């Protein structure tokens, strides 16, 4: 059973290619320019300022960007690096360090029912990502069920039902306006009893992290999971739009506090946004990116590979 979830070389290559392709625009726009900077003669004070600006432009945030540049600068001096290639290698190294080596996801551990809770602000791409996750895990041999716990937004239930049909995955839903906790309770019971599902993925309504009552509601949904299934939710993923700026840190912080987020799904990487906020979030909150969304179709999706990510944006 485990073998199913380890990626084959072909899958790995496919995932890397997706990240590469989606970031090619990024590469030209952003790291392409870093290369240009380094190709220009000597490294001067101005070079570092420009580098910092480029990192800021990629939404790394002023703190992360300036720290990164300081590290880089120090290393380049200490190691007396002159060649552009060496400096680039060091930059790649520093960027990779920020993404660290995250602990493996616990989704694949053997248990009767695995529960995944998907949260995020309005419109970040939760429902679409859930369709992608469903397809992804189904292809890896899991019996997947979806819970339509966004009972608030108009037609949210219809939306996830359409995705259920498209991906061939069952959706457990109640009427619009139903209590999300009750939907989750039912979905867990059904998954355990009649459906004999292995993986339950819960869609929640988009909410701004500053809304006290809505965050409380989410805590309740989480509590229902915890009460019904040992150690659940086993993963709680925050869906983050790569177009988001510095506010992503506040989002991650609040969602983490409320429902113990364990990782990030970074969506809309097929756009021109760089997704650089990922570095800041990993650094400040230790939340690893798990998956990336690279389009609107169910297969526009890949596992996040720090090395491939950094490689792709630097090479």
């Amino acid at each position, binding site marked *: 059973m485990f073998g199913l979830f380890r990626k084959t070389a072909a899958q790995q290559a496919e995932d890397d290619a997706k990240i590469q392709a989606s970031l090619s625009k990024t590469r030209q726009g952003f790291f392409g320019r870093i290369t240009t900077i380094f190709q220009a003669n000597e490294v001067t004070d101005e070079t570092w300022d420009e580098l910092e600006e480029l990192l800021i432009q990629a939404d790394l945030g002023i703190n992360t960007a300036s720290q990164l540049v300081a590290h880089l600068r120090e290393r380049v001096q200490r190691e007396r690096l002159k060649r552009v290639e060496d400096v680039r290698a060091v930059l790649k190294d520093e960027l990779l360090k920020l993404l660290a080596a995250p602990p493996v996801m616990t989704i694949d551990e053997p248990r009767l029912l695995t529960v995944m809770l998907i949260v995020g602000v309005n419109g970040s791409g939760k429902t679409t990502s859930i369709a992608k996750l469903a397809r992804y895990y189904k292809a890896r041999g899991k019996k997947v069920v979806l819970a339509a716990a966004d009972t608030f937004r*108009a037609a949210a239930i219809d*939306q996830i039902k359409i995705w259920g049909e498209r991906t061939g995955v069952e959706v457990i839903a109640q009427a619009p306006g139903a209590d999300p906790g009750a939907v989750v309770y039912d979905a867990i019971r059904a998954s355990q009893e009649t459906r004999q599902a292995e993986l339950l993925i819960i869609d929640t309504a988009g909410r701004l992290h500053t809304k006290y009552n809505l965050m409380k509601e989410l805590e309740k949904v989480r509590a229902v999971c915890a009460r019904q299934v040992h150690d659940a939710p086993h993963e709680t993923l925050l869906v983050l*739009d790569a*177009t*988001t*700026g*510095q506010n992503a840190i*506040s*989002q991650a912080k609040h969602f983490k506090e409320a429902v113990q987020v364990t990782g990030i799904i970074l969506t809309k990487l097929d*756009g021109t946004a760089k997704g650089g906020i990922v570095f800041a979030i990993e650094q400040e909150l230790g939340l690893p990116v798990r998956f990336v969304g690279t389009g609107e179709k169910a297969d526009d999706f890949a596992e996040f590979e720090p090395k491939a990510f950094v490689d792709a944006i630097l090479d």
Partner: protein
Amino acid sequence: MFESLQTKLNAVFEKLASRGRLSEQDVDLALREVRLALLEADVNFKVVKQLVARVRERAVGVEVMQSLTPAQQVVKIVHEELLKTLGEPARLDMSGPAPHVVMLVGLQGSGKTTTAAKLALSLRKSNKRALLVAADTYRPAAVTQLEVLGKQLDIPVHSEGTKISPPEIVRHALQRGREGAYDVVILDTAGRLQISEEMMHELEEIQALAHPQEILLVADAMTGQEAVNVAKGFHERVKLTGLILTKVDGDARGGAAISMREVTGVPIKFLCVGEKTDAIEPFYPDRLASRILGMGDMLSLIEKAGETVDRAAAETMTRKLVKGQFDLEDFLKQLQQIKKMGPLSQLLEMIPGMGRATKDLAPDVTDKQVRRIEAIINSMTIDERRDPHLMNAGRKRRVARGSGTTVPEINDLLNQFRQMQRLMKQMSSGGRGLRGAFSDMFR
């Protein structure tokens, strides 16, 4: 997480203690902070550069006004430059013959569908009939979403499922708009990336056949540095006439608005401030500028107070406050007024510098605190309220029994009240006491 620019600049200038003219050195130190603040607020770095250059030009050599500190002087200049960039607010263009076509465009997930419904509702409030058009045939259930919203609001929706092409749907909708004598036809288009050739071409097609009077870019207030390229991308393909900023009810500083406005030059027309269909507001440059600088939203607070607070009473209160004659009786009245304005935590967010602090305060905690304070003051005699010094040990025990609280709690309240009186006096002379006063009270 963010301190207001004012606070940061205060720290910068405290070291300098400079008065008189602002030297180049003073200004450069301050501008470092200005740059950081703007970048933290997601203003695009190129736009930041231009802004900072303009501020520098104006600030060097400026005589610090008698009434202002150097920090306030710099903030004032920055604020003015932001205002200039943000431009004048504008309304929907409703000139010429009806029906007027309003087309909403933007990235995926920016909030177009909800905004379409909000616009239709706000138009109805000014006696204009709108027809909503479901032209997003791509996102699953997008059509249903608009239909549901239309039904909730009792506003007609033109929809033809997802099998017909969006330009075709729009063509039919326009006809229906004319025949039904609608005032406005609002086109809800699918979210798209500004770099998607095919999808951008579709927008051009719709534009060519519908000749929208308004093409509004709907953008998320949380957008980062890319806002510039997104706005530019849309503007180049379909000439935008305005911007709508959504999800402004969160804690994003909204610097993207500055960036988008700078690259397109089109006015910001509305801000969306909640999921409910009436949560749409006209745009006030002043408020957004303050918000971007982390200065809170004092104006909204004052306006809100204006709606609920009896003006004469408020004036008496202010006079008392300034003179330091504010007693517990007044305080109780004040609390009751505040409670009328809505959940305390929401109000506190609008106060400069308080925004982030209040995130840690749960409304049930703050509101419970308020109830406790009320109970204590209600158990005091009028004389005690007017002169809290009367409160000796015996009286405190009596009040504790009467209000179901404890003597230490009463001591706390009295201490905080004294502190508050002091701070209020400072504040009326321009200090920065309010934040301290409030956070102490609700610790």
